[in-house]
């Protein structure tokens, strides 16, 4: 380590600016890309989003001859192609929580809010940066998955589906949109709970524990309610066929977006009010 500079005089800063939203976006981008674990998690999430469907496609292709008719009926080419969305949503959700909760656990939130004491621009900037990153990463991942799995399944005509087939393009990009919205929702939860374990547990509870619990309700209630849960509603964005008790892709996407808006709104109110 260098010795401390002998001249204990602070050099002047000629040009003094103000807090600008553009700057806060840039700052949050620097913070996002400068933590090694974040970069690795995103890279691993990206690769698994592609690898998972490819493995799925290989397994389906090699066992096709010995599969029962029911088994075969359960394999849909688009579902194989988008199987990675399930992996991606978990990775993006965990990172979304961490993006804020780690600021609290390390104390860097105090530095952040000292630089931007109005606080809300920090939340908006994190949101924009993370939404862009998750969308920009997921779009190529699902596109690669789609064409790779189709190539692997080329021997089976019944498992071929055209990218221009009605609903397919929407489903592929819808998968990326879904992952982005999940990231936004998780970021909101992270800001509300301010704790990594708590945030991830809350996310898992809402997305993965609540839906099966609905089965204890009378069927008519279950049918009426379940379609509005965030996972079920949001999944319509990347689902080709829609049943009697599922929303349309547009309605489902809007319901998930509404959950995101609610989480972010609560986060915003708490962010301004709470001590850090």
């Amino acid at each position: 380590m260098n010795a401390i500079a002998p001249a204990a005089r602070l050099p002047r800063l000629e040009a003094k600016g103000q807090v600008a939203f553009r700057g806060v976006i840039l700052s949050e981008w620097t913070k996002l890309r400068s933590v090694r674990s974040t970069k690795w998690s995103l890279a691993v999430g990206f690769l698994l989003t592609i690898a998972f469907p490819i493995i799925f496609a290989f397994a389906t292709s090699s066992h096709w001859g010995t599969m029962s008719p029911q088994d075969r009926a359960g394999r849909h080419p688009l579902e194989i192609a988008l199987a990675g969305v399930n992996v991606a949503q978990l990775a993006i959700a965990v990172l979304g929580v961490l993006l804020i909760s780690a600021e609290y656990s390390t104390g860097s939130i105090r530095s952040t809010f000292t630089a931007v004491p109005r606080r809300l621009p920090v939340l908006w900037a994190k949101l924009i940066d993370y939404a862009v990153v998750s969308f920009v990463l997921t779009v190529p991942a699902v596109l690669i998955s789609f064409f790779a799995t189709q190539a692997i399944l080329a021997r089976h005509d019944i498992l071929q589906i055209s990218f221009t087939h009605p609903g397919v393009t929407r489903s592929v990009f819808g998968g990326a949109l879904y992952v982005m919205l999940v990231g936004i929702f998780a970021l909101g939860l992270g800001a509300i709970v301010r704790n990594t374990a708590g945030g991830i547990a809350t996310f898992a509870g809402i997305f993965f524990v609540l839906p099966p619990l609905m089965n204890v309700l009378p069927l008519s209630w279950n049918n009426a309610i379940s379609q509005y849960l965030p996972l079920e509603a949001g999944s319509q964005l990347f689902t080709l066929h829609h049943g009697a008790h599922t929303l349309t892709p547009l309605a489902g996407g809007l319901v998930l977006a509404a959950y995101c808006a609610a989480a972010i709104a609560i986060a915003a109110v708490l962010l301004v009010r709470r001590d850090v």
Partner: protein
Amino acid sequence: MIEARDLTKDYGKKRAVDGLSFTVKPGIVTGFLGPNGSGKSTTMRLILGLDAPTHGDVTVNGRHYRDHASPLHEVGALLEARSVHTGRSAYNHLLGLAQTHGIPKRRVSELIDLVGLHEVARKRSGQFSLGMGQRLGIAQALLGDPKTVMLDEPVNGLDPEGIHWMRNLLKGLAAEGRTVFVSSHLMSEMALTADHLIVIGRGKLIADTSVDDFVARASQKVVLVRSPELERLQSELAGPGVEFLAGGRGALEVHGLTTEQVGEAAAGAGIALHELTPQQASLEEAFMNLTRDELEFAAELEDVVA
């Protein structure tokens, strides 16, 4: 300039800061002194708007910190608690803060050089020693060339060379006309650095005074006197509240009287004095004397309540 008016902060039932009013003026180093847990760090968080006061108000350079358009140019702060993401390098930590205000990258490098972190600037800050972390915090505080510098326990973890550097830096910043507000629980450190003192105990203001006045006021009345007729002098001086200690080699330590009182009593009795010296309490003693009352009072109160 920092102005606090009746500043009060409760955490649940515990009152951490209790009706503090004070002004920190530019151009001098103001020490913020109090035992551990007396509310110094809380006061600093209130100044920065990180915590909201329960009552009262505090402004920096005429406004609430939150209302400044360029907060980093108004106040540079080093907080006691860690406030850096352990997975991020010092350079990227400072860069992220600089970018919010459009501060150029070369300023970040300049500050890293100033505090001597050049060689480790790209390493994860979680691997930093306490002293290195402290230097990073100082670089952060000075990044925006701020009008007001507020440092919580800045010499914690610094080596002697670093402490010396810090003292000069603080004096230099004050000489440039900045407001410099530095907390410490070590009176001796403040004595070497500060011009003015704000002393708190249990969240309450105990003293708001210049360092010189603080020592004078808090010093016990102790006088060292030497005389060939010590025994006669002792009987002349004896009275309620006056105590004597043998000072050795014909000297006597008189507790409870000023030099004037001792000198006049000796003159009245025709006793020759060979020495008459006021014994200044050390700063540490002065500090202890002041805060002891506060602590004892609080302890008694707790006994009564319990």
